[in-house]
């Protein structure tokens, strides 16, 4: 089955959405990410939507779900690369996507995640503080 690939980069997961997702693909992504966050002990998730030419309320919901689920699993989500036309349309549509952190690009999103993690270090599995 078609899936959107999830890249692991240290403590972060990077997802690049490049296709016009149909519903099942989006929901599979949601599931895959949840599993991967746990598997990889990920602290951050970067979703790159710079190739998405349209975000409707369904995709907005999926992004919101991913952000909430990650948070429950102690990871932070950043959505990066939203195109201006998409942003303008979302505002007009009334979708504010509150609760979802955004950044202009992967680089900036990554920088934000690092700053965030530095501020809230996680204890290691054996209970000792991380270096």
């Amino acid at each position, binding site marked *: 089955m078609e899936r959107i690939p999830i890249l692991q980069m240290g403590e972060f997961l990077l997802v690049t959405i490049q296709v016009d997702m149909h519903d099942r693909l989006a929901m599979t992504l949601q599931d895959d990410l949840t599993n991967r966050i746990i598997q990889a002990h990920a602290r951050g998730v970067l979703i790159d939507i710079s190739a998405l030419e349209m975000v409707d309320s369904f995709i907005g919901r999926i992004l919101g779900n991913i952000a909430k689920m990650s948070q429950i699993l102690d990871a932070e989500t950043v959505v*990066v690369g*939203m*195109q*201006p*036309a998409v*942003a*303008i349309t*979302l*505002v*007009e549509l009334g979708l*504010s*996507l509150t609760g979802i952190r*955004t*950044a*202009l*690009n992967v680089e*900036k*999103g990554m920088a934000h995640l690092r700053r965030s993690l530095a501020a809230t270090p996680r204890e290691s599995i054996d209970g000792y503080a991380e270096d």
Partner: protein
Amino acid sequence: MNLSGNSQIPEILKNSQAQLLTEWLSELMAAGIRKDLLKETVLREECKEFLDLLAEAVQKGNLTDIQAPEWRGMREMLSSISRSRTQKGFSPSETAIFVFSLKQPLFNRLRAELGQDSAILLDEIWAVTMLLDRLGLWTTEIYQKVREEVIMRQQEELLELSTPVVKLWEGILALPIIGTLDSARTQIVMESLLQKIVETGSEVAIIDITGVPTVDTLTAQHLLKTVTAARLMGADCILSGIRPQIAQTIVYLGVDLADIVTKASLADAFLLALKRTGATITRPQPRL
């Protein structure tokens, strides 16, 4: 009309092209066609093409409806001539005369061929007059269209020029708005700001409205939408230059600026933006 009731113009056009061409050209020369703007060889080619297309179009027997498909080639050719002449600086009359000056040569031909029967001659002359009038008017319509296109393009360029997005510093953009913001202008402003944010990777954009005399509900809403869109993309906006009157208007209108940061002056906004992007400003200590 010949005996079967059809116009004889198609025949005449087919048989007398060379003569028509010569007479037409001398008419045009006499009318003073702009030699400075148009070479004679080009003019001759245009006339020949016109006559060819005319002969072809009238074959179907339709001499009245120039919007019909058989007249398409002629319409396109006249459009093209009209466009190029408009751009060269010809007046609409000068362009239309191109068509109208064919009347006399055609009348001469008709008189020569049909001189005997004045009733038929009159009918044919009338048909020719109507046809050439329509074709000539077509060129003026195209002239109008071309001018409108130029005006629209100039308007667009003016709009772009009047709201430039300026890079103040690494990661900091400024959009000084001057004049009133109507719906159309705000949209263009919004799109160009967001585009620049992406292009420069700027996380802070200062929208300065010192030069905006009044703000109505619609304008305020548009500004709000711009800020929200920028935030969605991952950038923050600071609103600066809000005059006391505008501040009052915003309160009276009940517009909720929500959590948009506002600063009185562009300078204050710039300072805040610098701090946001992690910069510090130091002044070298004077040496004692």
